[in-house]
């Protein structure tokens, strides 16, 4: 049975894939469905949902279209989630490979640095970083990556430690390959699978962290974010709770989708590895 | 000579990845009360499956046909109470985070209705019976602090704690060094004699079995090939496969080693 068919047979994985597809669709068609600035005033303030069909989910405190904000927020969440995860995985893979392959002092120093990054709560670190440099999308991505690269680094290092004893590494050494070349051309690609298996968790964590940063007012002010929407809705929590609740539901479904689909991929490809 | 258990047309099928694998096919044999019966075979012969089936330890995914009648008991056997089971790997059969004293005591407590202090006293007695050095401190030791042979002695103690009528040793010596093997075989022999237990000894080593058993059953590919008294099997086997197994033991056999351990060869 091919991995794809195995994936399709797992109900949770399929559910996740559907949620994820919906999210990606929302992000991609947002500028088409809701052209113009989603932060522009679209109607009267605090219009309840399902009353005016040109504003299906109503408006917020300033009269902005909630549905448009929701769709545009998907773009931010997706972009930040994927970019931060990619950065964290890349940094972690490189650091872990270097540490595991070089060993000795290099390993010690890199591991102490990894310890230091793990000792500081990642959210506090992200907070400090964004507050220092200023909130923009790229900075938020960097801030999140700074807090999450340590996990992949440890996994990569563990893999590399076992790989570097293998025969094909010894033969590469024997033909005189430069150690750095061996590390990155022979060892790293083989150490990647367990690192990549972490990607769904990291993407999910990145999306949630971005939402929390935006909630605290540290997100990119020029972009619509679900976290920012929830923060905005807090001021009118008594009278219009849906303004905070709806973006939160979107977040839950998104993270759930990422997690289920990601785990599904890991399960189906991992099974194939053990069978072959 | 009454039968403790009668096995009739026992067939066990495992389901693996959608395929059905027959581990035992139409096995019929009697286990005589008080005898020492050895089940011999190579890997895949079904000998361990037979042991698990008799003990009722088969996985839920297995299909069982045929029957086992326990005329010697008059009722279906209770695990631990009527049947003691010793596994191959002593490191794996003991809980790594519980003291060995407690692991033996809990068996006594479960089946004999003892209080914890009574159960611990019984555990100490059992440790003395299996000749574990310094039973007092051993009670509070953890499995990783013992050697392989010592761990297997503990496993045996736990298996006989409730005084079962049948002791099943599933490759109980296969994971141990040769000299330790001989010691454990001697231990099992003594305990079985002292308590009047029936012994089912599973092994791939026909020489070891010949030293211990009164009867030998030879298995191959899930079928019973030959069954008879030890002397007959060893000296005059009727089946070619049995002869092949015996011939594979030319040269190094258990006799000189057992001699050195001070046991009858």
């Amino acid at each position, binding site marked *: 049975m091919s991995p794809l068919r195995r994936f399709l047979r797992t109900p*949770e994985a399929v559910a996740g894939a559907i949620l994820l597809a919906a999210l990606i669709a929302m992000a991609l068609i947002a500028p088409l469905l809701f052209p113009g600035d989603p932060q522009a005033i679209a109607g009267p303030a605090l219009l309840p949902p399902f009353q005016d069909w040109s504003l299906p989910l109503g408006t917020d405190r300033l009269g902005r279209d909630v549905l448009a904000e929701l769709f545009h927020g998907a773009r931010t969440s997706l972009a930040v989630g994927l970019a931060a995860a990619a950065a964290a995985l890349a940094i972690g893979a490189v650091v872990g490979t270097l540490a595991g392959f070089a060993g000795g002092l290099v390993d010690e120093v890199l591991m*102490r*640095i990894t*310890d*230091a990054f793990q*000792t*500081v*709560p990642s*959210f*506090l*670190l992200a*907070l*400090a*970083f964004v*507050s*220092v*440099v*200023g909130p923009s999308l790229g900075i938020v991505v960097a801030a999140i990556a700074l807090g999450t690269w340590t996990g992949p680094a440890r996994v990569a290092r563990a893999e590399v430690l076992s790989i570097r004893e293998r025969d094909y590494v010894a033969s590469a050494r024997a033909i005189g390959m430069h150690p750095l070349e061996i590390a990155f051309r022979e060892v790293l690609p083989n150490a990647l699978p367990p690192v990549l298996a972490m990607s769904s968790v990291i993407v999910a964590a990145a999306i*949630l962290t971005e*939402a*929390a940063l935006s*909630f*605290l007012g*540290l997100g990119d002010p020029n972009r619509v974010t679900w*976290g920012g929407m*929830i923060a905005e809705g*807090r001021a009118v*929590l*008594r009278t219009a*709770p849906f303004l*905070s*609740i709806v973006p*939160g539901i979107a*977040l*839950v479904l*998104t*993270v*759930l989708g990422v*997690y289920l689909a990601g785990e599904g991929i890991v399960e189906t490809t991992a099974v194939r590895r053990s069978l072959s | 000579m009454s039968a403790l258990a009668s096995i009739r047309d026992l067939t066990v099928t495992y389901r693996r990845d959608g395929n059905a694998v027959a581990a035992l096919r139409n096995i019929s044999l009697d286990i005589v009360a008080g005898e020492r019966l050895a089940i011999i075979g190579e890997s895949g012969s079904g000998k361990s499956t037979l042991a698990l089936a008799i*003990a009722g*330890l088969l996985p839920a995914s297995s299909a069982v046909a045929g029957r086992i009648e326990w005329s010697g008991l008059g009722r279906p056997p209770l*695990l*631990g109470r009527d049947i003691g*089971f010793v*596994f191959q*790997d002593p490191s*794996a*059969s*003991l*809980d*790594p*985070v*519980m003291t060995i004293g407690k692991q033996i005591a*809990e*068996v006594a407590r*479960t*089946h004999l209705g003892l209080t914890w202090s009574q159960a611990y006293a019984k555990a100490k007695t059992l440790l003395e019976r299996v000749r574990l050095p310094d039973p007092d401190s051993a009670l509070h030791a953890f499995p990783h*602090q013992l050697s392989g042979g010592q761990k297997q002695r503990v496993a045996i103690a*736990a*298996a006989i704690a409730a005084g079962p009528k049948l002791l099943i040793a599933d490759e109980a010596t296969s994971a141990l060094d040769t000299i330790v093997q001989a010691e454990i075989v001697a231990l099992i022999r003594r305990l079985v004699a002292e308590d009047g237990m029936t012994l089912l000894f599973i092994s791939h080593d026909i020489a070891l079995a010949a030293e211990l058993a009164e009867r030998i059953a030879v298995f191959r590919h899930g079928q019973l090939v030959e069954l008879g008294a030890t002397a007959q099997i060893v000296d005059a086997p009727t089946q070619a496969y049995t002869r092949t197994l015996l011939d594979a033991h030319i040269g190094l056999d258990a006799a000189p080693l057992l001699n050195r351990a001070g046991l009858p060869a």
Partner: protein
Amino acid sequence: MTRALILLRRRLVGSVFVLLIVVIGTFLLLEAAPGDAVDAYIVSTGGDAGMIEMLRHRWGLDQSELTRLANYLWALLHLDLGQSVTFSRPIRDVILERLPNTLLLMVSATALSFGLGSALGIYAGARPGSARDRFLSIGSLALYAVPGFWLGLVLIVVFAVDLRWLPIGGIETLASDKTGLDRAADIAIHLILPVAALGFIYLALYLRMMRAGMAEAWRQDFVLAAHARGLSRRRVVLAHVARNALLPLVTMLGLQSAQMLGGSVVIESVFSVPGLGRLAQEAVASRDTPLLLGIILTSAVLVVVINLLVDIAYAFLDPRVGAGEAGA
């Protein structure tokens, strides 16, 4: 006991080194900020160039980076974290004031998540693949996906606004002059919602870990052996399987403490709890760099201490730990 002490000593040395890296790293990071505390101060209170220079000199901000780092490290040795620009008080005092509230929140939330999570995990893992197992598995995954601050807001809407059972925020009723048991009860009521919000997020984690740990433990041979010895299913589940599955969870306690400290920032913000997390947010808002540095350092020390305690607890729980060195 010696086993624990040997571990402690080795970890202590390593931890000091790690904390040093944290201090230097964070110091350099915060130095990278364009503008400093004085600029932020001036923005809100106003002042001319002369005042700016005077303030800079008073707060030592006109010296070189390296000098300031050296001064800072020296002060640290005296447990002096510097002066907060925002509060005009020693940072150490401000932090120590707020710290107990955060600790209370964290300990309660951890007790909730670990206790209830493990219990539910054992319940689910006792019958792998059963209906309740699948339900708890999906349920915990959904809970895992919930943002803490959003859960907090939902809880406020339901329990504080709609039902009016619990207060909206704060740690106690202001100016109520309650003492002793009354005060404790008052604080407890105020903490129910924040603890629930913080706790339920990590509950999912422990539930899933315990469930996975049980599944792993079920496959171990000693479980079959315990079954072969005729032990009751209940005893096998609790005394053997769960006990073994507990070990990785205890390790996770240590790792999660860092995450929970981060999570407390938003929760304290949502519920207006005057703790360390909220203080961090205030420090960010007022660009009070020394205060932020002090908070990060305190958090790091807290995480190190918690991890040390967890490691000692683990050494007690797993008899195999340190067996080689202490010569058991």
